[in-house]
């Protein structure tokens, strides 16, 4: 998709103004324009074309070969902490000095933000995991938090629709906690991985499966199957992974009814004080720093949880002094993510492999889905809800082999026992004082008050982390591993959800089950803000399914001329 020159849309009216062109915004734009409506999509970042992608640039073509992040640290002290930010793609992300945030989390929360059409889909981990009623109705069973106001049956047709379009490669496993979908053929497990899968199943009954990944094994819509070259987060000229930039947004633009405004720093939802309806969006042009307004019959915030919530706070009016759509007082509360960084690793002396730099690189690892606190199973001592284990089986070069000279060079390549690594990531409970608000005294380079965040893990998360490490070590021991070492790190993943939770009661929720704000009938928030719980599953697939469902509802309202 080329960067095309758009006429200045300031002052124009559309059917819907969409903020954000990523996971949720791309679907909203596609579905609305394909239904005949005109939309404006405001995107803070720029458009990339295939020529900008660098997945085929080898490390040795870069000055530092991607092996140090020191050159990034001045402009990007926060972004550079993420595994997804490196010498190949650092210029895709915010300059932390231009776009800071105030962080009260313990440990520090690394808030990763690309500034691109397609948003975080440019660099996501591509994990597509369905939630189930075990998650949607968890509160009914353990009394913690609130249920989702929807069921798996409500979301199922949307999961099917989204997965079919996205193209998700996976293995059907029949697990109630990890529902199957219309998968593309699996990429497959190596022989060594199959051994681990069998042993874990025999020892514990747990399933170790291919991670369900948004990478094609069959062509769809002109997108080619993956050719296993390596780092999807450096781009993909064959369009083999899922990125809104060359899928949903491209579809929307093809209709001729989508006006994409890049470099648009969305600031406030504009309100009509008489009708108490949204009129449009005020944004700051990134280049000129001039304020601009676009108008719509409805507004859909799809900017990612923290950015959409920030907009609602920054849209406070005399009528809504605590933030727009915040009559419940819950806006910004119950912020959640998944916490990761704990697990264990060990070697299997009887399962060996030869390391090689000549092999295909599968764009996903393995997954051991949640096995704790499942219905019909034992309640785990010490924590509620559960977690999954990202699972890796493989062998690297033994660069620390002893010796020097040719003997050393030969030793590093030798066939040796595979390493099995389990790395946990788990559900975070909703806490009213894990929050996203704005700091009125700190503005970014565009004059917009910045996000202030507290996202601190508590007792349940810490107890879960201990289990990730100790139980992973038990699994390793039972399958015959040696040299088992536990890891006890703790870091929040880029899975922020929950700051405008959905519900049926306007006193205890911000959004309806269709992601419409209770307070403002023509204002929607379609990203992860609406999640009442985090579950253990990566949120993006559910965000996309909910966004399509919400857009269908919005479409009905617009067709009925309700606004």
């Amino acid at each position, binding site marked *: 998709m080329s960067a095309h020159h758009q006429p200045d849309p300031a002052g124009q009216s559309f059917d819907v103004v969409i903020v954000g062109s990523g996971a949720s915004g791309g679907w909203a734009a596609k579905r609305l324009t394909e239904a005949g409506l005109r939309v404006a999509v405001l995107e803070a970042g720029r458009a990339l074309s295939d020529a900008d992608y660098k997945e085929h640039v080898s490390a*040795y073509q870069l000055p530092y070969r991607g092996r140090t992040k020191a050159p990034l640290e001045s402009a990007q002290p926060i972004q550079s902490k993420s595994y997804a930010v490196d010498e190949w793609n650092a210029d895709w992300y915010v300059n932390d000095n231009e776009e800071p945030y105030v962080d009260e989390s313990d440990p520090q929360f690394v808030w990763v933000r690309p500034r691109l059409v397609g948003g975080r889909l440019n660099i996501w*981990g591509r994990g597509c995991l369905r939630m189930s009623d075990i998650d949607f109705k968890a509160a009914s069973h353990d009394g913690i938090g609130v249920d989702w106001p929807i069921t798996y049956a409500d979301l199922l047709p949307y999961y099917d629709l989204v997965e079919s379009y996205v193209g998700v490669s996976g293995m059907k496993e029949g697990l109630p906690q990890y529902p199957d979908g219309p998968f593309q053929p699996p990429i497959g497990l190596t022989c060594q991985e199959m051994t681990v899968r069998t042993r874990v199943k025999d020892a514990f009954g747990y399933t170790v499966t291919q991670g369900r990944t948004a990478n094609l094994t069959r062509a769809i819509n002109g997108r080619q199957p993956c050719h296993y070259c390596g780092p999807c987060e450096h781009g993909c000229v064959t369009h083999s992974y899922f990125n809104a930039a060359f899928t949903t947004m491209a579809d929307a633009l093809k209709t001729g009814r989508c006006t994409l405004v890049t470099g648009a720093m969305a600031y406030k939802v504009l309100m009509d004080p008489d009708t108490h309806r949204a009129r449009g969006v005020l944004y700051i042009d990134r280049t000129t720093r001039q304020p601009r307004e676009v108008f719509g019959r409805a507004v859909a915030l799809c900017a990612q949880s923290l950015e959409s919530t920030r907009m609602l706070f920054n849209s406070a009016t005399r009528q809504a002094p605590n933030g727009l759509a915040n009559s419940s007082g819950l806006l910004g509360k119950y912020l959640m993510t998944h916490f990761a960084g704990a697990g264990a690793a060990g070697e299997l002396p009887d399962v060996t492999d030869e390391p090689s730099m000549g092999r295909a690189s599968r764009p996903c690892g393995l997954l051991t889905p949640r096995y704790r606190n499942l219905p019909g199973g034992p309640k785990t001592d010490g924590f509620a809800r559960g977690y999954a284990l990202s699972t890796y089986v493989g062998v690297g070069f033994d660069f620390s082999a002893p010796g*020097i000279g040719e003997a050393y060079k030969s030793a590093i390549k030798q066939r040796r026992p595979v390493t099995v690594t389990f790395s946990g990531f788990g559900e975070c409970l909703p806490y009213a004082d894990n929050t996203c608000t704005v700091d009125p005294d700190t503005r970014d380079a565009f004059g917009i008050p910045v996000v202030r965040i507290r996202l601190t893990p508590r007792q349940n998360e810490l107890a879960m982390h201990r289990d990730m490490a100790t139980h992973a070590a038990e699994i390793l021991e039972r399958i015959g591993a040696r040299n088992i070492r536990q890891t006890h790190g703790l870091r929040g993943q880029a899975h922020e959800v929950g700051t405008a939770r959905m519900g049926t009661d306007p006193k205890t929720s911000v959004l309806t089950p269709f992601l419409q704000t209770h307070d403002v009938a023509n204002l929607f928030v379609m990203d992860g803000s609406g999640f009442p719980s985090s579950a253990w599953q990566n949120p993006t697939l559910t965000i996309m399914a909910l966004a399509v469902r919400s857009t269908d509802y919005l479409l009905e309202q617009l067709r009925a001329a309700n606004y």
Partner: protein
Amino acid sequence: MTDTTRFLPLASAPEPEGVTRRSALQGLAASLGLVAIGPDGTETTHPLAAHIVQRRPAASAKVEAEAPRFLDAHQLATLTVVADLIVPGAVASGSPAYIDRVLAVESPAVRRPFVSALASLDAAAQEQQRTTFRALTSAQQVALLESQPRVLAALKSWIAGAHYSSEFGMKELGFTGTMFHATFHACTHPDGHA
């Protein structure tokens, strides 16, 4: 989910003998459905096809020609000697210059242990032979390295890290230079494994 333990860069299926670069490109493009045969038999290659291999290097980024940015002449010369001892070929692959480039931007916490390890070679050579490491014979240098396991380990990690991230070093470990794999090496055994 991303496998953060895999190391870059990643590689490809070996090219068959005698395949020219152009025919390899056409082969790749064809397998991606990017080559169309017209009614008169002419081939049209989709612009995407060129992009698949457009960033293949003609040669590695030339690192050796620049003056050192961090190390002084003596340090660089010492590093050059010890690099080829520990990892033969590390100098030809540009390792000393690459290490110097990284040190020039890194933090004191990273620089200090390297500088210390390198200087430990001279310190040990002074103690044993009253001269610099560079001035020892090869046999004496090898013996000295083997007598200093922590110093050896520190230098080895830098030098191996540099050599095996060069194009030449990667090829020694199986990298073939192209980036296309039609399939993944999945298990085909029907009964799984125990």
